[in-house]
């Protein structure tokens, strides 16, 4: 039985781990991928105290800091969190982990395309992060399914590596994005617009080899030979697995109270998955520290103590 199970592998998760472990709690972090959204960021220059760092670098340093303490890390995808009479049980890859509290800190993840073959070739030619993976496609042919500036930035970056970049569009042009950026992208010789199509299937032997496209203007389908597909559709909170457990807002974000607690006592949340409007590494870290201390407080109260005291509780007592 752990004191706290932390779901996630980014800034919030490892800060929560650091703070819980420093409070002497028995901590387990279950992370699908280490690094979270910060992995997709090249350069961070607004994290207080650090002039310049990379996203992965920053998360790695917080992870290292947490690991100075007794923190257990499991690399797995959580598919369920259930409430028990006493505490919670978190399931990941068929294993069950019991804990007194849970901190949800799994952030946001890239939006999937939701087409056939996508799950099969994730990491085998399909990438959701041009910043991370563009250099792997030097001299190759790639396609980009993207929206707005995200998609345009990806195409622009890929022209530096790939020999050919197909820009996929359902209409006659790429959707959204800054007009000046769009113009710059379309002027690149390597970029070819593939208009009026929809991806039906991603195919290949061991990795992506071709896309089966539906012709939205004419009839039938066509095949596009590629070595890689980049999906840049933005980020979402993948909170499906807790939707019956904690209150979510319409966007699937976890509703939190001022002290990072959720609608379920004993479950806390921090970072980009909360319903607060701010999404920044330093805010995720701040919320996570608070969530860890709130979890500690909750455990102490369950054990009959008065928990973490503050000037505020003292005042209320004096007033009575």
């Amino acid at each position, binding site marked *: 039985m752990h004191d706290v199970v932390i779901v996630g592998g980014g800034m919030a998760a490892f800060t929560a781990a650091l703070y819980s472990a*420093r409070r*002497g709690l028995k901590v387990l972090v279950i992370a699908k991928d280490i690094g979270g959204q910060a992995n997709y960021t090249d350069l961070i220059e607004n994290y207080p*105290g650090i002039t310049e760092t990379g996203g992965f670098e920053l998360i790695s340093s917080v992870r290292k*800091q947490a690991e100075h303490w007794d923190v257990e890390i499991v690399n797995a995808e959580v598919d369920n969190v259930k409430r028990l009479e006493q505490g919670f049980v978190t399931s990941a890859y068929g294993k069950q982990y019991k804990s007194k509290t849970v901190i949800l800190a799994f952030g946001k993840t890239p939006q999937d395309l939701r087409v056939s073959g996508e799950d099969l070739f994730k990491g085998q030619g399909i990438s959701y992060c041009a910043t991370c993976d563009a250099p792997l496609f030097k001299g190759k042919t790639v396609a980009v399914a993207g929206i707005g500036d995200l998609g345009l930035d990806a195409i622009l970056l890929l022209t530096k590596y790939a020999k050919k970049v197909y820009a996929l569009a359902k209409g006659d042009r790429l959707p959204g994005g800054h007009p000046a950026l769009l113009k710059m992208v379309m002027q690149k010789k390597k970029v070819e617009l593939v208009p009026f199509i929809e991806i039906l299937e991603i195919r290949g032997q061991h990795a992506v080899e071709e896309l089966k496209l539906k012709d939205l203007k004419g009839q039938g389908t066509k095949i596009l030979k590629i070595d890689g597909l980049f999906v840049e559709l933005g980020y979402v909170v993948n909170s499906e697995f807790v939707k019956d457990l904690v209150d979510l807002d319409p966007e699937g974000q976890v509703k939190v109270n001022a002290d990072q607690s959720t609608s379920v006592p004993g479950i806390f949340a921090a970072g980009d998955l909360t319903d607060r409007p701010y999404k920044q590494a*330093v805010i995720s870290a701040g919320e996570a520290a608070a969530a860890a*201390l709130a979890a500690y407080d909750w455990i102490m109260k369950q054990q009959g103590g008065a928990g973490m005291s503050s000037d*505020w509780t003292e005042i209320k007592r004096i007033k009575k």
Partner: protein
Amino acid sequence: MNHHKLAIIGSGPAGLTAAIYAARANLEPVLFAGLTYGGQLMLTTEVENFPGFPKGIMGPELMQGMIEQAERFGTKVMYEDVTKVDFSGRPFKLSTQNQEFTADSVIIATGASSLWLGLPSEGKLRGHGVSSCATCDGAFFRNREIIVIGGGDAAMEEASYLTKFASKVTVLNRSEVLRASKIMQDRAQANPKISFMMNTVVEEFLGTDRLQGVKVKDLKTGESKVLDTVEGAFIAIGHKPNTDLFKGQIELDAKGYIVATDQTKTSIDGVFVGGDVRDYRYRQAITAAGMGCMAALDAEKFLHMDQG
């Protein structure tokens, strides 16, 4: 003309993070760092719980880094104390001893101060064995003997928490009875590592570059003695928010903390708040920094809506 879109008062993690974000958003903020700048971290030595520094960092070094970062993006840092504010009309007015300023928006990040005993030896050994933050510094005292000064819930909580690290914890209480709630007292008293010295005060913290013993006095007998195996002392007699400047200008709670809604908003439209000056609960550098960032983002939004 000393007019700014945004004025930030305070130079701890909350104020400086607000400045970093606001400056990067081209708000060209002025930050009043004060004569003693850098906030509570200037009084600490090694900080090992600020995320991103696995090897730890010295408190003053961390704050110096944040000041440079804020300046690099265009924050104007004034090493003067704000002596008066007037939030009754727009633009808001702020005065220092020598100058007057106006601003379209303000972020208050003046922090809180730990209450200290006020002994000269305490000032000398602060950060070298004498601390007011068990969460920050407790882990440095693994297998050491320490004392906790205070008799309230905070003192009981800190004493209990510190037994995770320390070999022995002695709680010193000035009077015959503890102020703490019964449940907290019971829990501390049931802990075999905790003992109590009632009617006892510290006369002097001993040691030159680190704490080595404490001279205490029994108020009942008048006798003094030296606890020579004590290497750590935690002062847990409370905190005070730095809000004297804002009395009558903005809504404060009974204990003097600034009342905030939606994380950062105060009772005055256009005046935002972040950090320990509104956080009576967690008081961590990183939580303050996070709140400072929120305040800057909200101030930016406010200015955008206000000025189109």
